[in-house]
């Protein structure tokens, strides 16, 4: 024996040679391999946010890529970095996603400059989802504040596409100012669907605003809620969902029937880098979607 031991070639493991699929989460894979995806369209939403429509380049990869509403992807702009972004589109399109991205750091700034046809990398999907399947035959409250409409749009579209499965559906959305409203071009469509109640409210109205003025909780106060037949999904900044959840709790909705999505810094999406930890709970594995009871029990969550 000349060599102490034979080198172990991890790339020769059968699992490593399987096609990339992050939904196959319990097995060995090239965890830094990405789905190359091209930007199909860029749709400006506000001064700060743009909607990116992306399609995975490889047809077979497109077939394998499926996600559930509430999950996120790691978006990599090679050379610039990688960031977690919640998926804003309906899960019924395979290998195609829409991401609503606010210009904030290096990666998002460069993405905001990128044009149609640019190829970026996607890893994922990662994380937990809004358990829409549990909510069937119930009323649904879909509540968003500010940028929270980005993650909420996936369950909204999912619910609309399966409208007959649910009883009353309410969409409530609030922002600070009217020029911060996201997806405003879609409100009319959502509103026109019979039996979907969309309410939009802004905190500070400018002269052009003709809708409601106030806090998102004001919209809730006007509603009659059947607590034991209602599920709620709330997306927005912590201070917003804290007040909303407190109100809903008063109305009698159990905390484990309310779901929120938390935002944290992430560098891996796979429960390794610890950047998203709340205490020692990985937001990327146990979240980003948590029921409110769990959030209340996580120290330093809100």
């Amino acid at each position, binding site marked *: *024996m*000349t*060599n*102490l*031991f034979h*080198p*172990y*070639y*991890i*790339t020769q493991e059968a699992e*490593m040679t399987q096609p990339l699929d992050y939904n196959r*989460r*319990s*097995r*060995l*894979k*090239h*965890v*830094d*391999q*990405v789905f*190359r995806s091209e930007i199909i369209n860029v749709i400006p939403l506000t001064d700060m946010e743009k909607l990116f429509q992306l399609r995975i380049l490889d047809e077979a990869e497109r077939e394998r890529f499926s996600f559930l509403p509430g999950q996120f992807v790691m978006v*990599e702009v*090679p*050379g*610039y*970095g*990688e*960031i977690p972004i919640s998926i804003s589109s309906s899960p019924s399109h395979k290998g195609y996603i829409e991401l609503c991205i*606010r210009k*904030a*750091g290096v990666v*998002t700034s460069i993405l905001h400059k990128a044009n149609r*046809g640019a*190829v970026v*990398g996607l890893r994922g999907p990662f994380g937990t989802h809004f358990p829409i399947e549990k909510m069937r035959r119930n009323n649904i409250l879909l509540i968003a504040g500010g940028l929270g409409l980005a993650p909420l749009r996936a369950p909204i579209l999912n619910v609309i596409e399966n409208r007959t499965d649910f009883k009353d559906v309410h969409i409530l959305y609030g922002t600070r100012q009217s020029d911060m409203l996201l997806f405003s071009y879609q409100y009319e469509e959502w509103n026109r669907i019979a039996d979907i109640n969309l309410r939009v409210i802004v905190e500070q109205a400018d002269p052009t605003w003709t809708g409601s003025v106030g806090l998102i909780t004001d919209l809730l106060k006007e509603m009659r809620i059947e607590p034991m037949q209602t599920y709620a999904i709330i997306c927005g900044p912590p201070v917003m969902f804290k007040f909303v959840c407190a109100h809903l709790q008063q109305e009698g909705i159990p905390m484990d029937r309310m779901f929120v999505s938390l*935002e*944290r*810094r992430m*560098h*891996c999406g*796979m*429960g*390794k*880098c*610890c*950047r998203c*930890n*709340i*205490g*020692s*709970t990985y937001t990327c*594995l146990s979240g980003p979607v948590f029921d409110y009871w769990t959030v209340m029990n996580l*120290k*330093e969550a809100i």
Partner: protein
Amino acid sequence: MLFKILSKEEFRNFIDFLLKDTEVIAPKQINVNADGKAIYQFLPVQNFEEIRLDYETTDYSAKTYFLPYKEDLSSCSFLGTIWDREIKYRIQPRAIVGLHACDINALLKLDKVLAGDRFPSPYYISRRKNTFIVGIDHDPCEGGFCQSVGADVVTHGFDLYLTDLGDRYFAAINSNRGFNALQQVKTREPTARDNNDYLEVRRRIASQFKPLEVHNLPNLMDIEFESKVWKKWADKCMSCGSCAMVCPTCYCYGVEERITMNNAKSAKIKQLYSCQFLDFATVAGGLNFRPDRETRLKYRYYHQHRGFVEAYEEPLCVGCYRCGRVCLADINPPDIIQDLQTEYQE
């Protein structure tokens, strides 16, 4: 587990055999500190004489041979309008000689996170499986509290584990390749006397630890979440991150990318990071979930002594005390845990 006895001379032959075609990492004395005490580090060695198996401890743990401080995860080549990604894993075999039980236990804990069933890391697994580990028993190091956190003995996670019986080593064999490697030198089966001597040494070592009260620590930490103990210690923390750097189990990291100046290639670089740095939990846009030293220091202790227990039924800390030794402000787990216990009793 199989056991063999090998003489000190044969052990030397064994090291020579390893050195023939494998990179060998071992404790080496690199300096003396201001008080004249030897400073050791795990470094590549060229010959047997450089190895100091009698070392008390090292400033740095050996984790960087599995989780390098800085590592390229992948690279991209830019080819006009498209790019290609390349990923490489380290496969060169390597031997680490002279790991203490705490450091092997640290690897077992890292295995749980990095080689477990959720997104196992091929980078880590490739290094781990290509590393031949020879552990060694030793008398407790100053400040070490490994016994209190159950890390003073180790039953797997190594290839060979040696106990010094004076003129010979008692070797525990825990892998096929360890068994094969030992066949390169002369060994014999242990006798009743060897077994006795071995158990005697283990008893002697075990009896020298100063116990630290860690009973019910996870619960205690929950109760003491708002304790002023945290502020007291955090007021001293300079957020230099050295505790996490020398820790054998801290695995948190950050990723950044760099493009070459000629725009031809980019690298995705992983760096082990520290939860004590100001921007550890800052999200794009500037919101920082742990802006003050107190929440950051507390977070580190909760991860080590509470959260990890919740996930894996054992603390992440192995009691090696390297963080306590490196900390210029003398922030250390035994004192903090002691303070929490005292606070609770009051």
